[in-house]
């Protein structure tokens, strides 16, 4: 079931959580709502579920306007960041809750619950209470509970936010596989761009209650519509009006007319990848991402002077941050000053 939101507005007192938001989520896709906290991404997800009522605008599920439908009739599966496990119920009762509400008979509920517990890899834990499970297990239980009623759409609100890094990575891969098997239209909210790129096919970047840009991970990274998207999706250095990715910063030992002088402040080895931090003449701090081999070839040391050459830089001058021109025509230096400087390597 495809989901679309059209012209959504929502405010909480003085705070404008959603400010004219429209998104389009294709049937069967896995979409991430990505943004910093307070960007409105959770509010948007909750509005789709019916947990929030929009001040204006509408939510369409499979083409039907569900804006007036109460949450219990929308048939959405919702997974909360802090699991929202029913603490007084066993895992079995938690997962079977929606089926019991739908008055399934006992044998059918039992069969379905066990099938789901196998799917989320929690077989044999049916009689445990949520307090006896780890965080990752609780979240998988919550997912099984949401999937039990065969929802039209699956909505996940920072589903891995409360878990530690290792478990989070495992669950990501697991969610991706699950989605490939089930093909239920899925939207998940995250503030972690790596997680969004890892899991989702489509990303919607939000900021201050607006959609900044949507598209695939590649599109957002390669053709960011504006400064915000560029700096939120991936790392970025700012050089005057220009934005340069750290891996597009070439470090050389001999200056020319395209280089900037900088002093090596710190060299951080992150395995194969090396982070070299510079201070430029005007006090700007930038960093370059090098490989171990490059570092060895350059023989850089902290305190040394070296020269930086931006291989690819972007400028968003003159382009309104909201018109999305960067996404549609990213390589047109003529239109509105969205310029790109490229240098031969």
């Amino acid at each position, binding site marked *: 079931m495809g989901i679309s939101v059209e012209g959504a507005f929502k405010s909480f007192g003085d705070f404008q959580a959603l400010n004219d938001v429209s998104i389009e989520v294709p049937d069967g896709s896995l979409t991430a709502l990505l943004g910093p906290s307070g960007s409105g991404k959770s509010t948007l997800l909750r509005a789709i579920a019916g947990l929030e009522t929009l001040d204006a605008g509408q939510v369409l599920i499979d083409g039907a306007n569900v804006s007036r439908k*109460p949450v219990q009739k929308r048939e959405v599966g919702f997974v909360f960041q802090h699991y929202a496990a*029913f603490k007084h119920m066993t895992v079995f009762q938690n997962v079977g809750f929606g089926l019991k509400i739908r008055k399934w008979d006992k044998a059918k509920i039992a069969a379905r619950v066990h099938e789901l517990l196998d799917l989320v890899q929690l077989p044999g834990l049916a009689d445990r209470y949520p307090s006896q499970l780890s965080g990752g297990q609780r979240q998988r239980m919550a997912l099984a509970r949401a999937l039990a009623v065969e929802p039209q759409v699956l909505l996940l609100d920072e589903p891995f936010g409360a878990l530690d890094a290792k478990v989070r990575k495992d669950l990501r891969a697991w969610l991706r596989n699950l989605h490939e098997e089930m093909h239920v239209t899925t939207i998940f909210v995250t503030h972690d761009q790596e997680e969004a790129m890892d899991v989702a096919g489509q990303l919607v970047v939000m900021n201050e209650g607006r959609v900044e840009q949507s598209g695939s991970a590649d599109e957002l990274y390669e053709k960011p519509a504006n400064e915000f998207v560029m700096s939120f999706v991936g790392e970025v250095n700012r050089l005057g009006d220009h934005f340069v990715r750290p891996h597009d910063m070439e470090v050389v030992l001999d200056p020319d007319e395209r280089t900037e002088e900088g002093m090596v402040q710190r060299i951080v080895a992150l395995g194969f990848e090396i982070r070299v931090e510079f201070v430029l003449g005007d006090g700007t701090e930038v960093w370059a991402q090098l490989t171990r081999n490059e570092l060895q070839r350059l023989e850089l040391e902290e305190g040394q002077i070296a020269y930086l050459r931006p291989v690819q830089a972007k400028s968003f001058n003159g382009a309104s941050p909201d018109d999305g021109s960067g996404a549609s025509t990213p390589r047109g230096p003529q239109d509105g000053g969205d310029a790109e400087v490229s240098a031969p390597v």
Partner: protein
Amino acid sequence: MSAGNSLTSRWSLRVLGLGYILLLLLLPLALIFYKTFEDGIAPPLDAITSPDGLHALKLTLIMVAIAVPLNTVFGVLCALLLVRHKWKGNVVIDAVINLPFAISPVVIGLSLFLLYGTTGWLEPGLAEAGIKVLFSVPGMVLASIFVSLPFVVRETVPVLQEIGTEQEQAASTLGANAWQTFWRVTLPAIRWGVAYGVVLTTARVLGEFGAVSVVSGSISGQTQTLPLFVEKQYQNFNLPGAFGASVLLALLALATLFAMNLLKRKEDA
């Protein structure tokens, strides 16, 4: 050295705490038990099983049977209103709920007197309908409800706040309507807060003296609850009777506490 000091201070704190409880709580209670059975079990038993005594026991249980369920239902609803439906009037409700704690029970009794008495506001209408509130059971029930009203609210509000709304939201996304969500998710989650409120309400209704005394007139065999019976026996120098009824009251309260613990243990097992 410092370990020795903390050990000393820990022990002196324990002695102080235990001593305080012993002298002020347990000693008087123990004395009552002792005095009650000083001359054997017959005198207190006779007093309690006298027609007036049995009537007082019955009346006390009637008070509990009416006031406790009413205040439980009201208390849970009121707590839900205070915690789940934020609006400006909540501040007022929250303050008013505490009034029975703040006002002396005698004053509560007097206020009911003013409302339902022969010169009271509601008297003409009630008299016409043939309802007698003062010096009869309805007035005593009203007084009992009044004095024990805050307990369930006060015990339920913090538990409701603590469980938050996520479980309820999860239930609604799974198709549960408001009624189903309340019975299957909210109530089970707050049940021990409510249960504790019920125990306190029961204890208060069992033991209420001041307010009930004012509105009942304390007529033996008619409008006398156990606490009023205790006082009457005491005034008539029937000490075994007074002590016997006191012990009965204490046992009823203990039974309530015990019942709750039993339920809780059964649940945990």
